[in-house]
């Protein structure tokens, strides 16, 4: 049994389970599934300044911070007890392309050739980690949600603005992965 769990889980198992998070949070306490709001709560909690956007009672939103803390521990648990010893099965076209940019280590879920502490102050590393993180945080809040809040919760409740947001997420990702990222990796 444990051997099966250690294998990568196929989409038709993982997808429906992710979908079940929506009713789980609703039934546990009438909470809407959304992860990026935790970043807003972090701001409201630590550095609200005098900014109206962060003036609210974040203590009411503690559940959301517990939820993301749980995700962190989920990562720890998966690493400690359920790690898959084999490297990932990737599309050979992607492997070939990434090899050109010197990305040859596929042992982790992150590209360790680029995403590690001593690469932080290289240009591509800085753009990816600091620049990318900034865009994720800024963009998610500007859009009023991220993949969980819009693509999953929003579409589940048939909100057309969430469809607009989801299409924009995908468009931005396509442009980055196909046309901008190659230049960054060449730096």
């Amino acid at each position, binding site marked *: 049994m444990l051997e099966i769990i250690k294998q990568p889980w196929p989409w038709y198992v993982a997808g429906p389970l992710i979908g079940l998070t929506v009713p789980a949070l609703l039934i546990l*306490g009438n909470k809407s599934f959304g992860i990026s709001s935790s970043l807003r709560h972090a701001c409201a909690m630590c550095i609200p300044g005098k900014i109206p956007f962060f003036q609210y009672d974040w203590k009411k939103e503690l559940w959301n911070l517990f939820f993301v803390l749980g995700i962190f521990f989920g*990562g720890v648990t998966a690493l400690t007890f359920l790690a898959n010893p084999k490297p990932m099965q990737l599309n050979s076209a992607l492997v070939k392309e990434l090899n050109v940019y010197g990305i040859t280590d596929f042992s982790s879920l992150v590209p360790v050739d680029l995403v590690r502490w001593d690469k932080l102050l290289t240009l591509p590393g800085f753009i990816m980690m600091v620049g990318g993180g900034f865009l994720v*945080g800024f963009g998610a809040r500007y859009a009023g949600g991220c993949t969980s809040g819009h693509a999953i919760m929003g579409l589940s409740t048939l909100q057309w603005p969430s469809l607009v947001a989801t299409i924009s997420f995908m468009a931005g990702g396509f442009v980055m992965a196909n046309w901008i990222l190659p230049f960054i990796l060449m730096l």
Partner: protein
Amino acid sequence: MANLLIDQTAEREHDMRAMDSMCINESQKQHKWYYNLKYLTVGLFFGILFVKAEVISWFRIQEMFRLQSFHMYGIIGSAVVVGMISVWLIKRFDINTISGEKITFTDKKFSKGQIYGGLLFGLGWGLTGACPGPLFAQIGMGATVTIVTLLSAIAGTWVYGRFREQLPH
């Protein structure tokens, strides 16, 4: 007049909250802090799921945006279908929360932010290969440098809040 002002402020506060998945439909019940542990448990399963389904893999996200694999589309697609059916069932059978409160839904309002912000978010997603949820799981599974990405995302959120009034919505 004073009442009108209060109404407007309340409405503003409501809109502000409604932009996020926040407790607009505030619970009237006061719970002890440890009631939040149930959300930690859901998060825990969710995090394991993220790692085991390789949703938090930078490589899987690259495959998705290059149309080289069906995996992520299958995951998001089936998650949405299951979510839709669940929400429909909750509405159809008027299911309450475990503490007996009514489950409510708030409609999202359209704003141009969903386009501009969405595109910026997409650029960041393609770059980091992680949306906010996976960031937490990546740190957990040992990619500690992702803490920098997370802090940067918090900084991005703060900058948005700071300049919100000047941005087109």
